[in-house]
């Protein structure tokens, strides 16, 4: 393994990052920065992203994985983070990558909420391509799901009589913090989720983009979220979307997941086939 862990420091911010350098294949001059999922989903999906980073490194890519402020090994308080701080973190990570591994092309891979972070970063930074895994569009639904799962766990394991989701949201909007599996959620995130519109992102001039829609059951059609992504990015001819059968490896599953071969293979295939990227793999 040729992996270099380091901290990116910028004023008050201190991000933990790991740079995977090409190993076992020639450097193809291309780097990918991973924008991870949100809160607990980040923890659950970490190993799959580590495996994919190692696979990409074995194909000649540089890969940078980093933790957002308030998450993982980075500094900061989760309560002070917003989607804007995630975008700022991503830009700082890209800057650190460019200093350490000069590459002619830099792409982003976003998982779940990280897809939005990646897409928003594209609007502000010079990015050559974007890969979106199980992208979230309906952010309200994401937060509703996270709150529901947190309440269900409390009720099942601790027999707590918990308030319902609507009450929790009211409390959040009134300024209280809600402990969402160890991450203290604030009203700021909920307000952002309520006002979010995918069209705002779609207006940005996106680079070639690959959407990997993941569903537990085998199906040919894309999910509503993936369709929205495709529609939003339809002005971009280099945008493609595929549906694959895959468990939600960012959630608690009965099987310990370390890889996602369908997502890995589809993504590698797209990277190889997209001519605009000019990758000599």
């Amino acid at each position, binding site marked *: 393994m040729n992996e270099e862990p380091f901290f990116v420091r910028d004023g008050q911010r201190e991000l933990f990052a790991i740079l995977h350098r090409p190993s076992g294949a020639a450097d193809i001059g291309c780097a990918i920065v991973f924008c991870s999922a949100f809160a607990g989903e980040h923890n659950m999906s970490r190993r799959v992203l580590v495996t994919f980073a190692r696979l990409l490194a074995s194909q000649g890519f540089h890969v940078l994985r980093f933790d957002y402020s308030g998450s993982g090994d980075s500094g900061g*308080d989760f309560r002070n983070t917003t989607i804007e701080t995630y975008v700022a973190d991503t830009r700082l990570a890209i800057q650190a990558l460019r200093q350490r591994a000069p590459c002619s092309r830099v792409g982003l891979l976003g998982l779940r909420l990280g897809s939005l972070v990646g897409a928003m970063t594209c609007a502000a930074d010079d990015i050559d391509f974007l890969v979106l895994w199980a992208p979230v569009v309906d952010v309200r639904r994401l937060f509703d799901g996270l709150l529901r799962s947190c309440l269900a766990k409390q009720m099942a394991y601790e027999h707590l009589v918990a308030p319902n989701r609507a009450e929790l949201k009211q409390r959040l909007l009134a300024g209280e913090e809600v402990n969402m599996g160890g991450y203290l959620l604030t009203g700021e995130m909920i307000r952002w989720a309520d006002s979010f519109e995918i069209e705002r992102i779609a207006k940005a001039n996106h680079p070639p983009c690959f959407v990997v829609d993941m569903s537990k059951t085998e199906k040919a059609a894309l999910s509503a979220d993936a369709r929205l992504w495709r529609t939003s990015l339809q002005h971009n001819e280099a945008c493609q979307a595929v549906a694959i059968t895959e468990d939600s490896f960012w959630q608690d599953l009965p*099987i310990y997941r370390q890889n996602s071969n369908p997502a890995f293979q589809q993504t590698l295939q797209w990277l190889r086939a997209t001519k605009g990227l000019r990758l000599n793999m």
Partner: protein
Amino acid sequence: MTLVEAMPQQTESIEKEFPHEEAVVFQSNGETLFGIIHTPARERFTRRVGLILIPAGLQYRIGPCRLYVNLARQLSEEGLHVLRFDTHGIGDSGGDLGEKYVLDLWGSIEEGLFVQDTLAAVDFFVRQNRLDTVLVGGLCGGAITALICATRTDKVNGLVLLGLPILKDSHAAQNSLTDDMNLCYYGREIGSFGAWGRFLSGRSEYLSIFRALMHMLRNKRSDPLMNQVFLTSLKKVSGSPALMLLIYGERDKYRSDFEDRFWRNKEYRALKRRLRPHAEIHVVKGVDHAFSAPAWQIVLAHLISEWALRNFERPSPDRRTNSLIFR
């Protein structure tokens, strides 16, 4: 066992100015393991005391609810050296655990799957930070791993066991429970003519009967779900000089397992007596299994650092753990 009040939810951040943190790698069984060392900005202990936090089950080095990150930062501010690391197949470490049932992997962890990696972490951390005293611990699977680890080396001076599971967690354990239930059933049926009639006329579930009998012959324990590795390790540790700090959240299911199946069980009276000079047990009021709220994590860090200071700063018999209030 003492009941500790958890502080009310507080809003101030437990994130302080970034302390000295360093990413490290070391070897175990041919695999590269990854970790983060927190070195105190200034030494408060006259001896160098280090704590190794072992992954909780299959959660990587940050711990569930980022518990290990917050604990390590808090404890290093209080003068302890801390190593958080990923065992093989987890987080950023090398190795492959295979795609198995989580329940079965938990069962393997409870029988020592990560002990070798922890022993390697002990050797590495002692060398790297020139430690005088080594404590190992963790939450849940990390706690049971620490307990087993202390039976395999005399380098461990203390154990910090959080939410320690004492029962088995695996499909095999579930099967064992089924066999035990079958044994009870067939035991009751043994005096029934109808049952003998079914048995002699080929209408019985012979496989279930055979498995129940084998289970009886193999296993004369009173509690089929009790993790025997936990019991044998506890016995060994109670005869060693290692000290033990055991902390549960009041709302933790494992706390009730521990109290109901072990602490109040007369069968283990002698073992409990042997443990008393070594162990300090706390239950933190209103707290869950993973100490999920940052305010609870502050209480926890305080309990750990206070215990470490009392027992390892200037070790003398009168300052050691022996003044417990047992329920």
